[in-house]
């Protein structure tokens, strides 16, 4: 490594650029928590004074709490189902060499690049033709569709690090397939599974576009927030709620990325070690 150091020596200009870039990513979002403590209906400088009343008001906002409960329900079910499907998919493509693997994986990854409105509208048409009423179940269905690619991508990195020989050894020692999975595969990929669950939950919890088309009379939290944006006097409440959601998402996603990244990044490092 030392003989390439003249190419890789610290670059102050780029470091400053990187810090500005991070500021650009984070500062706009941080205005939500900042103004959520501001004692004014309007989001404007100068700050008027410190208050926690927008947070206190959330405690007896029943429609909001109902929406929160809906989002939690949808998020838990969607993340579990999507992760189960992701486990099957990731295991299949990393363990077996299968026909047209690339095409199959790309097909499953398609929802990543198809605009959300197309998926939402297409599902809405199908459901209405089948005569299925819109509800939290249909939202969950839509969320599973968009979560599976993320789950599969997360888990594939994990399964590829798993030596097939471990599983073969366990099988040779007389374990049946489920037992092999439970005793050998599962402990190795467990951080990946946890990462996938957390990631899928956050995606579902924050998802707006599909929910907009597929939710019936029970709103999810993002739908509720969107409906509040029309009323200027509700703005501080949205700020407080948004600040809470951002806080939780940041923590959950950080943990999930960390869990997943330690496996994935170790693999990258190994490849590049001279």
């Amino acid at each position, binding site marked *: 490594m030392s*003989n390439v150091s003249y*190419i*890789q020596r610290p670059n102050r200009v*780029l*470091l400053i*650029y*990187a810090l500005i*870039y*991070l500021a*650009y*990513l*984070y500062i*706009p*979002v941080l*205005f*939500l928590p900042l*103004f959520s403590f501001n004692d004014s209906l*309007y989001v*404007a*400088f100068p700050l008027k004074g410190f208050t926690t009343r927008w947070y206190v008001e959330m405690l007896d906002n029943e429609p909001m709490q109902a929406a929160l409960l809906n989002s939690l329900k949808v998020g838990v079910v969607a993340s579990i189902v999507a992760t189960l499907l992701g486990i*099957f*998919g990731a295991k*299949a493509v990393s*363990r*077996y*060499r*299968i*026909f047209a693997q690339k095409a*199959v994986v790309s097909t499953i990854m398609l*929802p990543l*690049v*198809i*605009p959300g*409105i*197309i998926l939402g*509208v*297409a599902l*809405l*048409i*199908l459901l209405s*033709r089948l005569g299925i009423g819109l509800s939290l179940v249909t939202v969950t*269905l839509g969320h599973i*569709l968009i979560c*599976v690619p993320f789950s599969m991508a997360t888990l594939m990195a994990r399964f590829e690090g798993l030596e097939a020989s471990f599983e073969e050894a366990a099988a040779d020692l007389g374990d049946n397939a489920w037992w092999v999975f439970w005793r050998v595969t599962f402990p190795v990929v467990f951080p990946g599974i946890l990462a996938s669950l957390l990631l899928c939950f956050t*995606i579902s*919890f*924050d*998802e707006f*576009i599909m929910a907009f088309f597929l939710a019936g009379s029970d709103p999810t939290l*993002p739908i509720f927030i969107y409906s509040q944006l029309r009323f200027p006097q509700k703005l501080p409440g949205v700020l407080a709620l*948004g600040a809470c*959601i951002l806080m939780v998402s*940041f923590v959950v*996603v950080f943990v999930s*990325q*960390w869990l997943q*990244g*330690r496996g994935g*990044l170790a693999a*990258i490092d190994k490849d590049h070690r001279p």
Partner: protein
Amino acid sequence: MRSESLRGYALLSPTLVVMLFSMCAPFALMVLMSFWAQHGFKFDTSFTLANYREALSSPIYKALLFRSLKISGACALATVLISYPMAYYVAFHVHRRKLLWIILMTLPFWTSYLLRVFAWKIVLGYNGVINSGLKVVGLINHPLEFLLYSPTAVVITLAHAWAAFAVLPLYVSLEKIDRSLLEAAADLGDGPALRFLRVTLPLSLPGVMAAMLLIFIPTVGDYVTPALVGGPNGIMIANMIQAEFGKVNNWPMGAALAIAMMVIVALISLVYVWVLRKATEQIG
């Protein structure tokens, strides 16, 4: 080999069946519906091309589609340009705590899209953070009106929202570059600028290509950002599609618009990939 493939497919089947069914069936039905007509709350299911004729001839639809392509193109270009140095820095100059940097770069992407767009609304607003901040420090007397409710606001907000889609592919393509090639170029007398232009940049082009497409394709269909920060001059084709399924209540027209949008985006993407591939072959 054959049985291995079969066993793989057996294991894959639940995932594949669910994904295929929940994509193919709705798409097929959407295509079918785009050839229908709406009569009040009923559909006339006899085959007609009228929706597509209208989608491609009506000045409103054409203008909205054209504007969406322009905004998304500008957004893809801007996002890749501002993200390239960042990805470059992490790939070449960060040696410790790389994972932390990668997580920091992508973390906002995983948080609520709606809230990030909303954040820009309060930043760019008429009495928003920028305008009121500038007024407090005395730089302006009247709020800058061009900030919110304009195509520029849409581009800024989208570029922020999709930054992770640029940073990650760029980072991966830069990280993969064999460092010994750079050494070789240095040994042969290339300075930093030439090394970048002749080695790093060409080798990172696949990442640039991927990043442009990954941003361009989904942003054409965005309707939350234009609805919240676009104003009348910033609304895009997806707002129209959403309206056809909402208050306008003409589902077949909405389906036709959605399909027309997808086909046009797919064609542009194919041409773009083809041209870039030809261009790289010429250089190589």
